[in-house]
């Protein structure tokens, strides 16, 4: 059993306290990632887990890694996540009802099975050698030790990782970068286009939102003379984000045009 084999007692008392306070919180936070509706909340919980892990790293004699975890992982990577979340819709929320039939029970069974089996297996594991502790390796300083390894034994992967970074940058550029292959239309050009277009309906500009409506918010469309909502009056990106309010609530009673025709 590992727990018997490993007697890392040196920093026992304070570290244990730290662990037993932080670990349940970490666990709960991680679990929370699965259970909260909003992606942003998930991200916040994730950040919490990462910081907790950073603390664990430091507690286990890996201060460099702990710092990197906070600075790079939590600071940069998670921010990237949040940034993209903003882009996609910051308060978009998942409905947590399962749509794929049978997946939920499978997932729960698999989770319980996997977790349970892993814990049980870990409890069974023995190492058969004495635990060393990282103090000796850190004798000359944790950063120095890592640097030593990084620039001697692992210099080749270290070099190769640079290629990986370039790949990532290149890939992001390929997928996200728009070449300016068209001249941006000038205001003058837009104006001309508007008048020479097929219909003069929009020549005077698009209707403003809230016009004739019972509400004057930007996410409520204008109403047309017959009482229906004018889709063009709401900004397209609002629509794309799904943030437009349902205007039917604000519609007037419909004008019955068919009666007129009969006269």
């Amino acid at each position, binding site marked *: 059993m590992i727990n018997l084999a490993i007697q890392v007692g040196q920093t026992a008392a304070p570290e244990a306290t730290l662990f037993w306070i932080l670990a349940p919180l970490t666990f709960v936070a991680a679990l929370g990632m699965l259970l909260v509706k909003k992606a942003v909340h998930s991200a916040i919980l994730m950040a919490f887990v990462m910081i907790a892990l950073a603390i664990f790293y430091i507690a286990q004699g890996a201060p460099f890694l702990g710092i990197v975890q906070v600075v790079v992982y939590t600071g940069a990577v998670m921010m990237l996540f949040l940034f993209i*979340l903003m882009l996609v819709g910051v308060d978009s929320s998942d409905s947590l009802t399962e749509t794929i039939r049978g997946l939920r029970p499978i997932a729960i069974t698999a*989770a319980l099975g996997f977790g349970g089996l892993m814990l049980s297996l870990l409890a069974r594991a023995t190492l058969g050698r004495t635990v*060393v502790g*990282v103090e000796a390796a850190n004798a000359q300083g944790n950063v120095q030790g890592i640097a030593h390894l990084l620039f001697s034994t692992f210099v080749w*992967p270290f070099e190769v990782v640079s290629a990986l970074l370039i790949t990532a940058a290149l890939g992001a550029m390929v997928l996200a970068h728009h070449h300016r292959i068209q001249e941006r239309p000038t205001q003058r050009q837009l104006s001309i286009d508007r008048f020479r277009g097929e219909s003069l309906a929009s020549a005077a500009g698009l209707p403003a939102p809230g016009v004739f409506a019972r509400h004057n918010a930007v996410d409520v469309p204008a109403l047309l003379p017959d009482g229906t909502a004018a889709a063009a009056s709401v900004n397209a990106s609002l629509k794309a984000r799904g943030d437009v309010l349902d205007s039917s609530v604000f519609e007037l009673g419909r004008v019955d045009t068919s009666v007129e025709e009969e006269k």
Partner: protein
Amino acid sequence: MNAANYLYLSALLFTIGAVGVVVRRNAIVVFMCVELMLNAANLSFVTFSRINGDLNGQVIAFFTMVVAACEVVVGLAIIVTIYRSRRSASVDDASLLKR
């Protein structure tokens, strides 16, 4: 206090991450769950590094962070692309290819 406790925690976090990939629909959340799994692995590395008394584990963890960062860049780029085409970040909506 036993270092193995970190391993248990790591296993639990890994499990949560894995299940998260299965149950969450928002591509970004799914991806965050993958990151959680990687982090869990890192915790294991650090713990084993301590148990083994060398820094190799920490170096791997360091590499993992770098690689994960690259992965995040690529992954988010893909997610953004597909979001722009589909106006949806739900992984369930991307199911043209099947059977």
